[in-house]
C-alpha cells in the first residue's frame, strides 16, 4: 500500500516499459523522493526496487563465501588444529616414554646398588670369618705349644724334685750317721742308716 500510494503520485513520470512497469516506476519514485529529501518517499530499507539487486548480489557473495569457507578456510584451520593436537599428543607420548626409560634406569641402578651392597657385605663377612678362624687356629697352636712347655717344665720340676728328694735322703743318712755317731760314739753301718732313713721318710 505504501508503494502503491507513492506510485500513484508519480504515475506520469515514466510508463514506457511494456513489461515490469511497476518496479521501474517505484524505482523512479524513490529516486525522486531521496533527492527531494522529505518524507514522501519509501523508508530506504523497505525500498523494494533494490531488493532484486540485493538478493542477487547477496546470493553471489554469500554463496562464494560459503564455498570458500567450506572448501578452503575451514579444512585448513581444522587441519592446523588437528596437527597441533597430534604434535601435542606425540610430545606427551615422547615425554612419558622418556620418563618410563628414566624410571627403568633408576630401578636398574637401585638394583645394582643393592647387589653391590650385598656383595660387599658378603665379602666383609667372609673376611671376618677367615680372620676369626685364623685367630682361633693361632690360639690353639699357641695353647698347645704352651701346654707342651708346661708339661716339659712340670717334668723337669718333677725330675728336679725327685733328684732333690734323693739328695735329701743322702743328707739325712749323713746327718743320721753323724748324729748316731755323736750319740752312741760308734759308727753304724751305712746300709742300716739308709734303711732307717727310708723307713722314716715313708
Amino acid at each position, binding site marked *: 500500500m505504501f508503494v502503491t500510494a507513492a506510485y500513484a503520485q508519480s504515475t506520469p513520470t515514466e510508463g514506457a*516499459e511494456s*513489461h*515490469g*512497469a511497476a*518496479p*521501474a516506476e517505484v*524505482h523512479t519514485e524513490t529516486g525522486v523522493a*531521496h533527492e527531494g529529501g522529505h518524507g514522501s518517499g519509501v523508508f*530506504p*530499507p*523497505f*525500498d523494494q*526496487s*533494490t*531488493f*532484486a*539487486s*540485493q*538478493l*542477487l*548480489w*547477496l*546470493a*553471489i*557473495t*554469500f554463496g*562464494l*563465501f*560459503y564455498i*570458500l*569457507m*567450506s572448501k*578452503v*578456510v*575451514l579444512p*585448513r*584451520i*581444522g*587441519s*592446523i*588444529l588437528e*596437527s*597441533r593436537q597430534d*604434535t601435542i599428543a606425540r610430545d606427551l607420548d615422547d615425554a612419558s616414554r622418556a620418563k618410563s626409560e628414566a624410571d627403568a634406569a633408576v630401578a636398574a641402578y637401585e638394583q645394582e646398588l643393592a647387589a653391590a651392597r650385598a656383595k660387599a657385605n658378603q665379602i666383609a663377612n667372609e673376611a671376618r670369618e677367615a680372620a676369626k678362624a685364623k685367630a682361633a687356629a693361632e690360639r690353639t697352636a699357641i695353647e698347645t705349644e704352651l701346654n707342651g712347655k708346661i708339661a716339659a717344665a712340670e717334668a723337669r720340676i718333677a725330675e728336679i724334685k725327685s733328684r732333690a728328694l734323693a739328695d735329701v735322703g743322702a743328707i739325712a743318712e749323713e746327718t743320721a750317721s753323724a748324729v748316731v755317731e755323736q750319740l752312741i760314739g760308734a759308727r753304724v753301718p751305712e746300709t742300716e742308716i739308709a734303711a732307717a732313713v727310708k723307713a722314716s721318710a715313708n
Partner: protein
Amino acid sequence: MVNTIVPIHVGGLDLSFTNASLFMVATLALAVGFLVLTTASRAVVPGRLQSVSELSYEFIASMLREGAGSHGMKFFPMVFSLFMFILTANLLGMVPYFFTVTSQIIVTFALALFVIGTVLVYGFYKHGLHFLNVFVPSGVPGVLLPLVIAIEVISFLSRPISLSVRLFANMLAGHITLKVFAGFVATLSTLGALGIGGAILPLIMTVALTGLEFLVAFLQAYVFAVLTCMYLNDAVHPGGH
C-alpha cells in the same frame, strides 16, 4: 541508502551493482582475506592473528556442538559462514560513510530464510513426516495438544521474521541513533560558543553509542549464529524438546 554504481537491467529487473553490492563484495573479500592470510603459515604455535581465526573456528564449533549435538556438525560451514559474514558486514558498517549490508531487511530476511529453508529441507529429507514431531512437544496432555501445536506452528513460522528483523532492526536503529546524535553535534556547533559547549553532551553520547554499536555488531552476529544452531537442532533431532 542504496545507490547504483553500475546499472544492470535484466528483463525489467534492476540487478545493478550498487553500493550494497560493493560492500557485500568488500565483506566477502575482507573476511576471506583475513581467514586465508592469517592461517597461511599453518604454524603449530599460532601467532596472534592466526589465534583469532582459530578461536572463531573453535567458538562456532563448540556453539554448534552444544546447540545441535555432534550430528549437527555437518552444518558447521553454514553456521560459520553466516557468523563471519554477518560479523564482518556489521563491523564494516561501523566505519563512517560505509554501507551496512545487514541494515537492509531484504538481506537479513534472505539469510533467515536460508536458515529456515535448510532446516525444513534437511528435516523432511532426513526424517520424512517424523519431522512434524517438532510441533508436538512430548509430555503434553491430549486436551491441550491442538492448542500447543497451533502455538508451536506459529512460533516456527515467526522464526524467520524474528531472526531477520532482530538483526536488521538492531543494525538500523543503532546507525540511526548514531546519526541523530552526530547530527546534534554538527547542528549545535554552528550556534556559536554556547552551541559548541552544548555539543559536548551529544558528542559524549556519540562516542558511547559507538562503543555500544561495536558490542551490538558482535552480539547480533552471535545471536544469529546461536539461533541458527537451535533451529538446526530441530532439524537434526525433531521432537527432542
